[in-house]
Structure formats: C-alpha cells, structure tokens
C-alpha cells in the first residue's frame, strides 16, 4: 500500500491541491520505466527474449489478480494454477471446436474469463468459513481436481494427448503482434489492480487481512468484498490461461504443474504483500531467472523455495519494502500528541439525535461462566457514560455485545427502542456506532492516513467495478475520504504523521489513531475500550478533553476504563460492574462514595 499515488507525502499536506505532477511521477516512475522498456523490446529484434517477455506478461495477468487475493486479502490460495488450467482448456476447446462449433479466439478468451470468474468464486468460497491453512489445502485439492477432469474428459479436452491452443487472427498471429496483445492486457490489469489498491475496497481487503475485527467495526462486509475479489481474480486468471494456451500452441495436462502454482505464489510474496509494483517485479524476475541460469534450471524450484524462506524470515515486506525509501526517514523522537477538541464540531456536526442506546437484561455465558448476568445499561446522547469494574467483570464483553461480536444469550441491545441485530458486527457502522479496541487494531504496513480512511468505508459510493476502472465516482470517493481522514487526524493531533507507516507509531499514538478512525463514521455512539491504557498523565488529560468535546456535540460515549481519575473527571454517569452484574449506577459523586464499590474496586 505504500506505492500508490495516495500515500506520497506531498499529497497529504494540503489536501486536494497538493497532488502535484511531481508527486504522481514519483509514484509512477517504475511503471513508466517498465512500460517503456516493454514497448521498445521488439526494436531489439531478439525474438527469444520476445517469447520470455510474452510469458512474463501472461503470468502477470494472472498474478495481478492473484495478488489481490494473496497479497491484499491474505488468503493463501496456493493452488491457483487450477484457474490457469481452466482458462487454457476453455479457450482451446472453444477454438478447436471439439465440444461446440469453433468460436473466434477473442470470444473464446472472453468466455474463458467468465468461466474463470465463476470457478474462482467457487474456489474462494471456502475462504469465508475456513482457517488459513485449511483453505490453502482446499485450493491444492481444487488444482488436482481440475487437472484430473482435464485428463478424464477425453472427448473434449483430448485427455492426456491434449488440444491445440487458440491462434489469434491477423496481426496478433505474428510473434510481436501477440506480444503486444499480452502486453496490453498486462498493462490493463496493472492499471485496474492499482486503482483497486487505492480504493476503499483495496484498503478493506488489507484490513480483513491484518485487522479483521477493526474492519468489521468499520462496516466492511467480508463475504461481499472477498467474493468480488475472487470473481475478478478468477476472471483474469481465466484470460491468462487462454493466452498461455496460445503461447504454448498446444496444451497437455502436464504443462500445469504444482511448480507453476508455487511460482505465482512466491512472486507475490517476494514482491511484498499489499503492493502492485513489488509482485510485478517479482513475476518478471521469476520468469526470467531460469533463462539466465541454464545449469541451475533443475534447481530453480529449490532456489525459489529458498528465496521464499529468506523473504519470510528476513524481509517479510519483500521487494516493496526494499524500495520504500519514504518510510526509512527517521521520525522525530519526542513527539507530542496535541488533539484539537475545538475542531470536533466541524466533523461531527450531524451527530446526535434523541435516541438512546440501551441494554435490557442482557446475559451472556462462555462455557458456563457468566460473563454478563442480567445487565441493564443506558447510553444517552450527549453524555459520557463510564463503565468500570475489576478485571473479569464483563466490561469488554459488554462492549462486544453492543458492537455485535457476540450475540447475547438473553436480552437485547436497542437503539431508540428498536433492537439491534445480535452478532452482526459489520452492521453497527451503518447505525453510526463506532468503537476502539483494548489492543489497537492496525494495519502495520499501511500509512496512518490509510488506516483512518478505512473508518469511512461505508460512506464510499463507487462500486467495485467503478473503482477498478477509476470512474469519476471513485475519484470523488477518494478525495472525500482523504479529506475526512485528514480532518479526523487533525482533531486527534496526528496530522503530521499521516504518511508514516502505522507500525512505526508509539503505542499512545495508536490509541489516538483508533479514535480518529472511529470519528470517520461521524458516530452517534462511540464505544471506547480502555483508551487511556499506556498513556502518560498529560496525554490522559488531553484525551479526556477530546472525549468531552465529542460528547458535547451530541454523541453518546461509553467509556470503559481503569483510570478512576479520568472516569470521575469527565463522566456524566457511571455504571460499576462486578462478576457480570451491575453493582452500582449513578453520578460519579454517588459512585465515589458507594460503600460496596469502594470495597470491591476502588479501595479506601
């Protein structure tokens, strides 16, 4: 995510006017250089390198799509060669006319893409239900199934003997003509995936990968996003398969080896996850490398595996990290976080309403342990409501029930009388209920700005396709989200760090970053889970002022905390929990002198 035009530092400071030509060139120069070299290749007259370059383009068409699945969404789809096989056979069979009347190669290519999309969706479906390793194994299973079917369905696929690949007509039947066809499609895929990377969908994918819980809280619907990605990736893989079959001029099942699948996968990881240019370079390197090292050709897969191991252990960010100079500049050592509570009204101007968020007799047990046992709670708009209690009293569980990560065994959470859907965490965002987490959930490899922009995902208007093709609505979305995120960062006092990688931030800064992300929702209700943990005394004071400002604009804030001074300083009401039950509820003054509370929790 660090090589997209959005995150260059010139773009950040100054909003829309800052995206000057210099900034765009800085991000685009690798692509331009590669593109120029690729277009000029035929001038060398070297047709051998022409074939290699064509192969690299074909592989990149597939890898560009797979990059979204593996690099961005983090799904370990090792057996993706299944889609290359499918696309190759579909295109070949349709042009050879063994099952249907012979079609034009271009039409066959499009149909291969459609078939790839459908099967990509099927292969990807298990990702929604299965853990990482399980999903990896099922993709391997799919790869084998597709090959077995190709072998068995002899009347159509020619079985073991195989089938001739499609031959494109006219100029495209010449070697350079075909090269330009593949180059053009490769360039198109680069553009589309780069667009997607710099869209709310791209950020949502990375959020699903690295901070799934926060993604849900921001309204990202994992199934929908993943399904669209699998459709797209499957489609381009199918097209790549058709091109592959044409390049090979004849395909047999033994051309689709596990080694090829590993090559695609490793190209993405060597390139670096969440990057476009990285995997592009990775694909080129891995396609070209065996041609330089002929005696080592037998050892090529061994070397790739060794390379992968080195990357994983030493350089998990891959090539993309290597060329990311911006994030090596040292940061100022003693940074102060200075929020600007006075700006809150500017971004939350439409917060509030008259509806309260209530819990009615909510109970939830885990394996027989009553985490919460008959809890009644009311969060009124414009109030800061504190929730305190000893460890294990059910505070975080309460938050989880409200924000929908756990469904209660009994009782309901209501917004203005209407019950909220239990266990549907990603729907809370649309009800303008935002939260932060006990341990900050961040995307380490993304910039602070990108992390915050995720908070506004549901306010984007552009569809997946519009983002792919960089339609005006997509550009508007990006402008809107960027501006809103900068404002939110200004409110919490982190605007100077907007372009910095989030994993370089101090712990306290991450807490404020989470608040900025939550503010992107323009929330009516803000749930804060121990936001003061790990903060210095001065930072806690500033945090308090910020929270009060948020409440005064009309939002209802639920503050779960251990820092008693903060609670009594800023809360309008306080509820005390003990062993899942309400021990006491009232104003801070009442609570402070409540005998049971003092003995159970506060101490003398």
């Amino acid at each position, binding site marked *: 995510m660090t090589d997209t035009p959005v995150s260059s530092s010139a773009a950040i400071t100054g909003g829309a006017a800052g995206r000057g030509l210099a900034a765009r060139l800085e991000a685009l120069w690798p692509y331009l250089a590669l593109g120029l070299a690729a277009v000029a290749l035929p001038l060398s007259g070297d047709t051998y390198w022409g074939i290699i370059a064509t192969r690299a383009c074909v592989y990149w068409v597939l890898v560009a799509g797979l990059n979204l699945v593996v690099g961005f969404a983090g799904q370990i789809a090792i057996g993706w060669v299944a889609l290359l096989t499918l696309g190759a056979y579909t295109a070949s069979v349709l042009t050879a006319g063994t099952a249907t009347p012979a079609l034009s190669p271009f039409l066959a290519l499009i149909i291969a893409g459609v078939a790839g999309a459908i099967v990509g969706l099927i292969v990807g479906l298990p990702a929604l239900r299965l853990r990482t390793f399980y999903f990896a194994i099922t993709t391997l299973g799919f790869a084998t199934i597709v090959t077995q079917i190709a072998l068995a369905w002899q009347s159509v696929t020619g079985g*073991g003997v195989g089938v001739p690949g499609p031959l494109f007509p006219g100029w495209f039947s010449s070697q350079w003509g075909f090269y330009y066809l593949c180059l053009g499609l490769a360039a198109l895929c680069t553009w589309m995936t780069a667009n997607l990377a710099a869209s709310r969908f791209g950020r949502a994918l990375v959020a699903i990968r690295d901070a799934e819980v926060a993604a849900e809280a921001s309204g990202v619907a994992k199934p929908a996003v993943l399904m669209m990605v699998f459709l797209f990736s499957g489609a381009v893989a199918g097209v790549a398969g058709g091109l592959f079959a044409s390049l*090979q001029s004849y395909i047999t099942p033994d051309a689709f080896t596990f080694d090829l699948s590993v090559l695609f996968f490793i190209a993405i990881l060597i390139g670096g996850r969440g990057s476009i240019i990285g995997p592009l370079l990775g694909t080129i390197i891995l396609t070209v490398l*065996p041609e330089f090292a002929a005696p080592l050709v037998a050892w090529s897969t061994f070397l790739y595996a060794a390379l992968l191991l080195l990357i994983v252990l030493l350089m998990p960010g891959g090539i993309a990290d290597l060329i990311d100079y911006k994030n090596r500049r040292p940061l100022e050592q003693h940074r102060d976080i200075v929020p600007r509570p006075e700006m809150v009204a500017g971004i939350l101007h439409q917060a509030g309403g008259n509806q309260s968020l209530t819990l009615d007799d909510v109970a939830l047990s885990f394996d027989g342990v009553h985490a919460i046992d008959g809890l009644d709670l009311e969060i009124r708009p414009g109030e800061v409501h504190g929730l305190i209690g000893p460890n294990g009293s059910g505070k975080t569980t309460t938050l989880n029930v409200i924000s929908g990560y756990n469904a209660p065994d009994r009782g309901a959470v209501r917004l203005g009388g209407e019950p909220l859907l239990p266990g549907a965490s990603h729907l809370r965002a649309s009800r303008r209920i935002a939260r932060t987490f006990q341990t900050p959930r961040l995307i380490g490899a993304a910039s602070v700005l990108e992390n915050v922009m995720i908070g506004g995902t549901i306010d984007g208007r552009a569809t997946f396709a519009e983002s792919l093709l960089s339609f005006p609505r997509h550009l508007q979305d990006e402008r809107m989200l960027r501006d809103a995120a900068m404002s939110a960062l200004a409110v919490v006092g982190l605007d100077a760090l907007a372009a910095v990688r989030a994993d370089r931030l101090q712990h306290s800064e991450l807490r404020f970053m989470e608040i900025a992300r939550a503010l992107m929702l323009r929330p009516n209700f803000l749930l804060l889970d121990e936001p003061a943990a790990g903060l210095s005394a001065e930072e806690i004071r500033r945090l308090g002022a910020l929270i009060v400002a948020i409440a005064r604009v009309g939002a209802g804030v639920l503050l779960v905390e251990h820092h008693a001074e903060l609670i009594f300083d800023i809360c309008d009401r306080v509820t005390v929990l003990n062993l899942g039950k309400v021990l006491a509820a009232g104003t801070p003054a009442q609570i402070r002198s409540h005998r049971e509370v003092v003995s159970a929790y506060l101490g003398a």
Partner: protein
Amino acid sequence: MLITRRRLIAGSALGAAALKTGFVRRAAAETETIRIGFLPALTGPSSSTGIGINRGTIMAVDEINAAGGVNGRKIELITRDTQSDPTKAVNAATELTRREKVHVIFGPLNSGESLAATPLIARDGVPQLDPCWVDSLTDPKKYPLAFRNAPTNHQIGGAANHYVVEILKLPKVAVIGDTTGYGTASVNTYVPMLADIKADVVYHASVDAANPDLKPEMLRMQSAGAQVIMPWSVNAGFLARIINTRAQMNWDVPIVGQTTLGSGQTKALLDKPENWEKVYANNFRNCAYDASGKLPPRTVAFVEKLKAAKLEMSDTLLWWIALGYDAPRLIADTVKASGSSPDQIAGYWKTLKAWPGVYGDITWSADQRNGFPDDEIVMCRANSLDGGAFKLAPGYAA
C-alpha cells in the same frame, strides 16, 4: 570417459555460460560448426528416456569430432534440459532456433513437450528429428521439416496386437494405461486397432500410476475373462505393480506391452524375479538376440564400444542409447552428403532409404515422415535382459 549426469550438467553449464553472454548469432556459413539443438528432459518425472538417449548422443558427437568432424566442420551439441515441462520446452526450443540458430533440432523426447514445441520449430523453419511416438507429430503439410526416426504409436501397438492375436492366439484382451498423455493416447488408439483384427477387448481403462493397489482393476480383468494383459505406460512403478499383482493372484496370463516392462527400473521393483516370467515387451530387432542367440553385427560392435567407454547401462535401455547414438551420425551423414541449410537437410531426408542405424534402418519419403520400418518392431522376453538387449519372445519367427 565415464559419462555421468554431473559431468553433463557441468559441461552444459560451461556451454550455457559461454553462449548466453554472446550476441545473437548470424546465419550459419558453410565452414562454421554444425549446431545441433538437443531438447532432452534430463530432470523431472519423465527423464528416464532423456538420460538414456543423452548418453548415446554425447558419445556419437564426441566420436565424430574426434575423427575430424564433417568435411572439417565440428559438431556442436547445444543441450537444453526441458525438465519434463512443456513450458520450458517451448522456451528452450525458441532459444535454440532464434538465438542459437541451430541447423537442426533433435527432440523433444517426451510427447507433451513435443506437441507444444513442434509447431514452433516448424514455424521457424528448422529441420527437426523427433523420436517421440505420438502419431500427430509428423505431418508433411503442417510440419514440412519434421522427420521421425522412431516408430509411431500406431506401429508399436500394431506389433504388440499382432503378437497377441495372431501369434499367441489369445483373443480376449485387457488393455490398461496410466493417466499420462502417453498412456491415455495408447489405450485410445489400440483398443479400436484390436477390434479391427477381431480381438475382443474385455477390459480397458486408464488408471492413476500412483495408485498403490491395482488389485481391484486386475480382479475386474480376471472376472471379465481376459487371457492377456496389455499395459501401456513408461512408469516403471506402475508396470511393476501390475506384474507383482498378477503373481499375488497366481494368475497365469501373459503380459504384453510397453518396452519399459523390460527395463532395469521395472526389474528393481519386482517382489520376486520369478514374477518376470511371461512378460513380453516391445523392442527392436536390432537390439534383440535372434533365435541362435546372437545380436546383429552392427549392434555387437556398438555394445563393444559402450563397454570400452564404460557407459552406464544397468538403469536404462540399450535402444535408448542406440537411438541417441544414431541421431548425430544421421545428421553428420546428411550434412556431408548434402549441406547444412534447411532445404538441403530436408531434401536429403526426403529421399533417405534404409539408412543403417544401430537402432533401426530409417527410410523417409516426401509423404512418409515416419522412418522406422514395421518389421523391425518385435516383442521380446522382458526377463532376458542381458547387456541391455533381449531375446525374442516365443513364437516369434517373423
């Protein structure tokens, strides 16, 4: 000189290093070296043929060069390992035709690779000597410069079928292949051929070679009343399992099929040496002991040469080495008689009659690009392996 795989890789490494740094070559002049592009699969799952053929090829090239070359021109063997992978075969073939500008290509040696590479080699107008058996690889119109110096699948199956139906007189046949290209193509081609000569194919199937248990399949054959089993696969493990299972079932029927039934690798995987009785494999007359137990003189001389060169034979087949040995010599004879341009080479080949190879006598014509004679394909006893050659199967007078 002991030819080992290490030396080969070292040699081709040096060769490759030297070649890769050079510029694209200009067109060949008549005094330049004769460049033979060679596309074996030396690594990967289908490398046993390649390794065997490679030994013979290198030996022939060294021999010719040591004797002064062809009209003073040395032969340069440019080898690219296809790794049993059709995609690498395509890359390598293009490199040989476009970059190295070879005069002729020998190979690829596996069907899947050949099917992909042949159209590209044809497009580049380079003469090709292809020893693969898949029938569709030669076509005078589509691939005018491609010639096959080995039998076709059709011929091989025909010889085996002829032996089973007309010599052994066993009409109920079970045909089994593995799931590779070669296996499925063979089964598909041979079953109708058997029907044509009035055999009764009671069972036919393609089975995954990695399946450890072939008992169910063999039981099915048995209950269908098969009198002979015809396996088609180059996978020694698969063939050995068929042979072993037949022994475990105590089922006394002959096994007649692919040459690899008689290879050292298959032998190594047998439970008991006795299991190898009544197994008859395709082979070639020049590599078979005749009724009086003697090899043809040409072959005897060749085997002597191999022994003198201490060539490793126990893990491969004689006819592979012979095939590899024949190819450079055929090319040398061609260049000597006719020249090294594509037209000159193809022109000579189109009129080639009974060229005396160790492996076989090759004859081509303008319409016939499959040069191996029918009558030189014979069935041999698999367990008669001795010095890389076999005894003819019983009943084989013709």
